[in-house]
């Protein structure tokens, strides 16, 4: 009896080893992928589905997808893993982390891995404004994946109540103020019950600020990430406008406005217009009890918004086979059809013009024309603030923007301080 059992076990083992294994591959290359979740919706499920489909088509590659938290937590995990010698093969991290990753020597340039003319064509196929945060020093370091821009949402009912055309958002700064004045309501005690506009100022303060400097024809840094221009007249003007919305025009609450509660303010109809990422589109569509519109950010000298979101990066200290497999996956995941699917599932902007030509995307745009706003805005978009020692430079700017918004510094003094601090931090990179 015992012998029979042993024999059958051995047979089973042999059949597993020789019978089933060849159907897969002898030795699949293992690739790990760290990714964050930064918007609502079943992102984890979508990624798992993508990985499963890729593995079915490429049995010689095994992808281990790891949900790594927020963007901030993801880079902490990826860099800590890298420093301890076991980096992920691929990570989806903020496009603004570019210089941090290069300075840590943590990532490999994509051009080294994708060098055929066909590959070059693929890299050239992304929106230019998304590539601004992906290339530096003549090299491509990141591939755009979950990217976004800032857009303005407006409440059509409240517009109608205020006697405004519900189908037309304010097109420029002056119109924003005059519309917002009509949309701001106070009760008998003088307490405001409904604000004309809410522009959040925590979490991504610098990013939102770029939503005002970009239309004011002002760029905040050079593409090498070694210089900032925070105190340029155009930037001071932009911050003055932001401060004036509450201090002078009284159409926005004073003090700092929480990023996380802004979509809720909009849903509660406490703010008639809000600025937030296009990534909130799906969330707002699902929860709004009133008709709303999506518009490009108001123009001043011209329209404009910074881009935002995450790129694929390939890490150093991984084997050439892994890097090759990583490249294959990244290319597969950013194909037009996949980019379209991803955009529809999450609300992010599809990263390539040809993705918008796919039948799925065309159908989606017919159902949800608002999804096209972020794309149309891309032609006016500039890179999100990203420099060497990025987090530190960004904090210097954020702190000072908040100081100006809460009235402890004038816009000019705040931006001068921010610029001085940034120059000090970036000193060693300017040599």
């Amino acid at each position, binding site marked *: 009896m015992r012998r029979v059992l042993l024999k059958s076990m051995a047979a089973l083992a042999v059949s597993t080893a020789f019978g089933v294994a060849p159907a897969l591959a002898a030795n699949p290359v293992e690739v790990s992928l760290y990714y964050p979740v930064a918007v609502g919706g079943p992102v984890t499920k979508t990624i798992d589905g993508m990985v499963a489909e890729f593995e079915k088509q490429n049995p010689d590659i095994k992808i281990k997808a790891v949900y790594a938290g927020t963007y901030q937590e993801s880079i*902490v995990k990826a*860099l800590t893993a890298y420093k301890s010698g076991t980096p992920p093969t691929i990570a989806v991290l903020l496009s603004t982390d570019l210089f941090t990753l290069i300075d840590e020597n943590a990532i490999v340039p994509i051009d080294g891995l994708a060098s055929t003319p066909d590959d070059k064509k693929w890299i050239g196929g992304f929106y230019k404004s998304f590539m601004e945060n992906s290339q530096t020093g003549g090299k491509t370091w990141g591939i755009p994946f979950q990217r976004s821009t800032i857009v303005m949402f407006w409440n059509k009912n409240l517009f109608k109540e205020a006697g405004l055309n519900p189908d037309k958002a304010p097109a420029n700064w002056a119109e924003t103020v005059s519309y917002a004045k009509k949309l701001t309501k106070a009760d008998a*005690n003088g307490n405001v019950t409904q604000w004309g506009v809410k522009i959040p100022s925590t979490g991504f303060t610098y990013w939102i600020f770029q939503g005002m400097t970009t239309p004011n024809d002002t760029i905040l840094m050079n593409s090498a990430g070694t210089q900032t221009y925070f105190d340029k007249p155009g930037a001071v003007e932009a911050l003055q406008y932001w401060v004036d919305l509450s201090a002078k025009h009284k159409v926005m609450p004073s003090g*700092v406005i*929480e990023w996380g509660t802004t979509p809720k303010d909009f849903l*509660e109809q406490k703010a008639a217009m809000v600025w937030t990422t296009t990534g909130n589109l799906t969330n707002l569509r699902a929860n709004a009890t009133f008709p709303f519109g999506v518009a490009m950010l108001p123009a001043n000298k011209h329209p404009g918004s910074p881009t935002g979101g995450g790129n694929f990066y390939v890490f150093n200290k991984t084997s050439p086979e892994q890097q090759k497999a990583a490249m294959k996956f990244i290319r597969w995941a950013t194909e037009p059809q996949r980019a379209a699917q991803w955009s529809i599932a999450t609300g992010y902007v599809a990263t390539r013009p040809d993705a918008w030509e796919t039948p799925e995307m065309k159908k989606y745009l017919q159902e949800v024309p608002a999804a096209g706003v972020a794309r149309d805005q891309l032609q006016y978009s500039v890179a999100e603030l990203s420099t060497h020692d990025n987090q530190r430079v960004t904090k210097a700017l*954020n702190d000072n923007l908040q*100081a100006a918004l*809460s009235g402890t510094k004038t816009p000019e003094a705040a931006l001068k301080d921010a610029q001085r601090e940034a120059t000090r931090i970036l000193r060693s990179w300017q040599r």
Partner: protein
Amino acid sequence: MNRIHSPLTPWLLLLPAMVLLLGFTHYPAVATIWHSFFSTPKGANPAVFVGLENYALMIDDPVFWRVLTNNIWFALGTIPVSIALAIMMALWVNDRLAGRGLLRMAFFTPTVLPMIAVANIWLFFYTPQYGLLEQVTQALGLPSHNWLGNPNTVLGSMMVVAIWKEAGFFMIFYLAALQQISPTLAEAAGLEGASRWQYFWRVQFPLLMPTTLFVLINALINSFRLVDHIVVMTKGGPDNASSLLLYYIYEVGFSFWDSSYAAVLTVVLLLVLALVALVKFRILDRRTHYQ
């Protein structure tokens, strides 16, 4: 039965505890101090010895001073209030009253809830216009206020959350201590005709002293250890008005990747905590009456 009385035996018995103590307490502390004298390794550049340069940097850092001042205010603002509240709640739920269990549970709930979730709820309490706080103040006809968005009120608002969380936790210790007090003391006081206040002030409070000391040390350590509410509710803003020492250490260490400067800041934290321990063992312990 072999009986080995070697001089090694006590050391072997101590070994497991020693390994843990050295590995998780002493080694990290010493390593932190050591690293604080070096520059941060970055990419191809290894760490080099820079002496006290990182410390000089810290003395010059306005954010550090801001954060330290915030932390001292935070400790001064939260500790006395949460301890007083804890004693009051403990005295209350120690009495024989209907629904005592429910009340105890209600007071203890803040302590067992995950802080991240709680911080998210508090974020909406403080939300201008439709937050819970706003609805109360509006009903009373008071003006609207942006609690977390104003540098003058943000730290106070964070203190309230900390007190709300800590008081229930400390109440448990006081409740345990109150139940240790022999009922004969209450009877004796009753016979002497002592008022309730006299009984509390002359009998209960002195007997609670060891607990107060324990709670005080914990509260002090907690106030320098607090980080989770800040991450969720304010990220230290606006303009560092609600940033505390540990949050700043996290920011420097894991946002800026400046591990040497984070080490310097950690040394300051270590010094603060060492000072607390010293005050406890050298001064307060001697003046405390243990039963």
